[in-house]
């Protein structure tokens, strides 16, 4: 649990993905090979803006153990400005107010904790962009 959380800190705290310089496709989380370019893959790290819109979403009523107290909550696929699609929770918003196409931005939140004496995992979630 500790090492698994720690290994993902860079990408989960700062939304670091990769961009293939050969075809321009952005991937998150980072991967080793661009499926479009295969051996011509030329990856570079890219810091994603965190801004995007809701591509699709689901309201979770029956939650896994670590998330029971938060139910019902919204899990969405967010299409980021850079083109990558990433999964995240929507916060500061009632489930009934979420809609496909809703503009959102990344926020830094607690994701889960390993009991009351274990490590706390932090990372990105998304909230509606107001105004």
């Amino acid at each position, binding site marked *: 649990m500790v090492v698994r959380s720690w290994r993902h*800190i860079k990408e989960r*705290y700062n939304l670091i993905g990769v961009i293939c310089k050969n075809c321009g496709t952005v991937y998150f989380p980072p991967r080793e090979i661009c499926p479009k370019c295969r051996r011509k893959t030329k990856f570079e790290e890219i810091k994603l803006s965190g801004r995007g819109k809701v591509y699709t979403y689901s309201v979770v009523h029956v939650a896994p153990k670590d998330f029971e107290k938060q139910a019902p909550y919204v899990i969405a696929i967010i299409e980021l400005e850079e083109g990558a699609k990433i999964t995240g929770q929507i*916060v500061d918003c009632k489930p009934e107010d979420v809609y496909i196409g809703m503009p959102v931005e990344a926020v*830094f939140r*607690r*994701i889960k904790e390993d009991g009351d004496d274990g490590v706390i995992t932090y990372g990105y979630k998304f909230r509606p962009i107001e105004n």
Partner: protein
Amino acid sequence: MVGIVGYGAYIPKYRIKVEEIARVWNKDPNAIKNGLLVYEKSVPSLDEDTATIAVEASKNALKRANIDPKDIGAVYVGSESHPYAVKPTATIVAEAIDATPELTAADLEFACKAGTAGIQMCMGLVESGLIKYGLAIGADTAQGAPGDALEYTAAAGGAAYIIGKSDVIAEFNGTYSYTTDTPDFWRREGKPYPRHGGRFTGEPAYFKHVINAAKGLMEKMGTKPEDYDYCVFHQPNGKFYIRVAKILGFKEEQYKVGLLTPYIGNTYSGAVPLGLSNILDNCDGGERILAVSYGSGAGSDAFDITVTDRINKVKDKAPKTAYYLERKEYIDYAIYAKFRRKIKM
């Protein structure tokens, strides 16, 4: 001269009204509202804590500062509600703003004044040339025991300040601190809620330290209350704040912009940093500010600040304090108890 390069605020979205807390404990809400001058307070969501508040405020400060986060040489997070007893909040913040790994970082605790203590530490490091920029944050998710007087005010929020020497939006003309051993409020190791000395938190604690720090600074600078356009003091409630401002000789137009506690409660280490961020949002170049924090235990840090013309270039680069003050959703006591983890399962 050393000054503020960027600043940013953050307040959680949820609020609970004094009426709702008073309903549960069968108290008269009007007596509390009139007695404390507090109407509602901010409540962090289940997934928010001092680290997440500090990160949001720091990101806003970076938007205004327009610097490379890798140039930040020190991160200090002042709070009395760090998520871990052992394991720094400051490393989480430094990583989340991409300032790591070449920097020093530490958590500070001094009740409600740990944030301003961090500002002073950054001033020293910047002035001496040891670092280019320092980041000082005051943030809290304060807890009051159920039914205790503190439950009406203990709130959540924070603000971050990037301290540097170039492109400052405000200059520190001077700082002065006043500190004694005064046990007016404390929380022992392993205990979930603090205890306090009731009326003892007033005259020998809050008023003595805030007044002496303000007077000490004005004597050092050779200034009088009328030399300042704005003032901000620690604000455990609205009543203490207004009383200390009047005792020191400040007028309503000087103290009203910095007073946020009536609408968000006491954000502890975040209180003076947030009051100051609201003043910076609303002031102009050339204006002068007196800011005095207070931490139980006890001590006060006072700052004499002059805003530069650059303020108008950066104000709108991040959400203003007023945005967070107005962004709110009311919750009842049951949801509040759940969000604040008061229900044990």
